[in-house]
């Protein structure tokens, strides 16, 4: 990672942030891992967390699981989560018709971040050796025009063509280019030469190296390597209860990896660590920035995919206030996360999302704040350390007053 020499100009990071492994975040962001091709990222994560966890395994679709046994969990209670489960492990709730036989006896907490990033895929090679491309996840044409990319397992270099300025009409200038109009120039002149380098189906991603800007970092895949990194940092600590860190695949292609992971783990609750888009650059209207870089980790109340569990939201806010960690509530706008699949797994999983605010998300140069990231690690660590199963205990129905209320005045 290159960086500015900010020396003693820049104050120390809060929440012990100077002790965090920022080089790991840079390495993760620089690794190429378009949805469905997460292997390189998974290897870096696995190597980083292996010394700190009790079990590490992958599943059929490539999710990486890192289990950290709780220091207050009796050894006898641990269940082998790698298999389909014991046939007799079901009835953790007597009387439930759906206490499924594959659910572990002591459900762990799930903490999830996704390995993959948005990018491009080569779909065909034209006769002139230029590669046709398609988006993997939400990528604007404007985010790739003129950009150097690396393609496939070997990281073949190409460039997405940029129309020459002096030959561009006003009509073309006025609109964003569509991905279908763009091609990757591999620097070769024939189809055969191109096919010797890349194949249809190869992923392509910006050739960006992370730069340390002092209080902030600039890199291509902070969404969601920032979450993966935060989860790796969290797995260095031990908690009262079993934690399974899940590094999921294919979030950007439709939150596809996290659902099977949640089904397998049947967790008692889940935290999703994300990197979320902001709208916080100067604008004319007094409208929401969604969240703001520098205002701390953002706690989700609702997005397109999920209403966050009110009890977990309260626990996170209370933890942040108790620990004096700067935080913000993400404005309930569109957008979804792995939480959308996790909270609907099996009989339902209380789920919350904590995001690192990010500018220029889904582009070649995404900007995140080290203060926010250090705050995110500190917040989730404190929330896990102060965890109690009572937080998500079944809602009682024999007394008036509902715990499912966010309202500060009417809540019991």
């Amino acid at each position: 990672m290159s960086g500015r020499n900010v020396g003693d100009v820049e104050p120390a990071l809060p929440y012990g942030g100077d002790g965090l492994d920022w080089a790991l975040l840079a390495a993760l962001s620089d690794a190429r891992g378009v949805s469905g091709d997460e292997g390189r990222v998974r290897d870096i994560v696995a190597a980083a967390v292996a010394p700190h966890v009790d079990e590490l395994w992958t599943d059929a679709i490539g999710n990486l699981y890192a289990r950290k046994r709780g220091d207050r969990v009796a050894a006898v209670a641990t269940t082998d989560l790698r298999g389909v489960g014991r046939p007799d492990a079901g009835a953790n709730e007597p009387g439930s018709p759906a206490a499924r036989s594959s659910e572990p006896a002591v459900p762990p907490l799930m903490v999830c971040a996704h390995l993959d990033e948005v990018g491009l895929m080569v779909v065909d090679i034209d006769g002139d050796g230029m590669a046709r491309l398609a988006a993997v996840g939400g990528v604007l044409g404007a985010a790739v025009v003129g950009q150097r990319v690396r393609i496939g397992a070997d990281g073949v270099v190409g460039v997405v063509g940029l129309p020459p300025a002096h030959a561009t009409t006003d009509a073309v200038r006025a609109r964003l280019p569509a991905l279908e109009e763009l091609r990757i120039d591999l620097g070769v002149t024939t189809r055969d030469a191109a096919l010797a380098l890349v194949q249809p189906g190869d992923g392509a991603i910006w050739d960006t190296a992370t730069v340390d800007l002092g209080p902030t970092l600039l890199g291509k895949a902070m969404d969601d390597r920032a979450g993966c990194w935060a989860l790796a940092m969290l797995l260095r600590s031990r908690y009262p209860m079993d934690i399974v860190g899940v590094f999921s695949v294919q979030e950007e292609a439709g939150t596809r990896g996290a659902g099977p992971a949640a089904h397998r783990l049947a967790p008692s609750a889940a935290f999703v660590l994300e990197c979320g888009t902001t709208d916080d650059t100067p604008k004319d209207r007094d409208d929401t920035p969604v969240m703001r870089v520098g205002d701390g980790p953002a706690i989700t109340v609702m997005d397109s995919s999920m209403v966050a569990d009110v009890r977990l939201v309260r626990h996170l806010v209370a933890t942040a206030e108790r620990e004096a960690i700067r935080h913000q509530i993400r404005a309930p706008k569109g957008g979804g996360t792995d939480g959308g699949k996790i909270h609907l797994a099996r009989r339902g999983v209380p789920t919350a999302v904590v995001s690192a605010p990010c500018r220029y998300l889904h582009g070649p140069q995404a900007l995140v704040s080290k203060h926010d990231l250090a705050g995110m690690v500190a917040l989730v660590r404190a929330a896990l350390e102060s965890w109690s199963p009572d937080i998500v205990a079944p809602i009682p129905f024999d007394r008036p007053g509902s715990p499912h209320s966010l309202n500060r005045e009417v809540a019991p």
Partner: protein
Amino acid sequence: MNPQTASASPSTVANAPSAPLLDALVTFTAAWGPSGREGAVRDAIIAWLAAHAPTVDIVRIDALGNLFTRVGAAGEAAAGAAAGVPADDRTAPGRPARILIAAHMDEIGVIATHVDATGFVRCSAVGGVPIADLVGCRVRFESGLEGVIDAEAIARKAAAGQTATLDMLYIDVGAPDRAACPVRVGDAAAYAGGLVWQDGGRRAMAHNMDNRAGCAALAEALRRAAAAPGAAEVWGVFTVQEEIGLRGARTAGFDVPCDVAIAVDITGAGDLPGAAPLALALGGGAAVKISDGGMISHRGVVGWLERLAADGHIPVQPEVLPGGTTDAAALQLTGAGVPAGAVSIPTRHAHRPGQVIDLGDLEAAAALLAATRIGPSGEAWYTPQD
């Protein structure tokens, strides 16, 4: 909140719904509960069951907030029977059929995204609110605070001929500035309103008939089933988050494997000036869903419900709804698939602040749902998985 009495109350009408059913409608429509914030509705349902149907088992509230209730089959020990149900008893010989009936508790609304410097609240939609027609609507937050939605006049003018969009809208809660505004980012609001009787007590209007009318019909059906159990076991599930993607029904369907799944919800009505053709009319009876935008009902379930209606002299009308869907669409696809259908209450002005139903249709829906406790056993289409 008491319904206004400008019109005669339903109790004066000859074929009036039962008093408990009307009480359910009154108390459930008075409860506030946009998607994800159903606690007060759930409390109202629990209180109603405790008052009117104490023998209905309240089994549990799940992680998402779904409320599970149950009426056992005839001959089964009633009290505490749910605790004795083995986890996967559906292959047990001679077991009663299990009918799951879902009614969603949530209503549509808006949720605050921003409070500007002058104290106005910006919002996102919760579910399918008619964004272009929100101008002038009164909304209510959980604390009881009410506000009115309006649109930026300049933006509206610029968009003349186009419909209003969310970014033009703001909620005025009377706050002079941001610091004094009691609304926080993430606070949800639903339509403000209330229940009134219309047409001499034969019809009723409320801001949230969708789906408090369905909740009332299900609660009343459970009361009647508990008073005289049938051959089938009936699970009544009051679900969360239907309006934002049938979410509660998904986990509920996983939780309670059943033989037949039925949703009770409101549907549209075609008996309005200039309405698109739709063969549903207020007063025509409960609607038996054939299909909607998200599901095709199991033909056997449709036939069974129609026979139950004929046998019980319950007025019904067939429903073919071109768009929209309900919890049954999610229930149908749980596990290895479940025969599913829906009983609907024709409703005018759905997803608007004044939603009108016919109380005879509500009574018919409750009666038809109660009749499902007879069970599908012996029906030609029904083949138990044993």
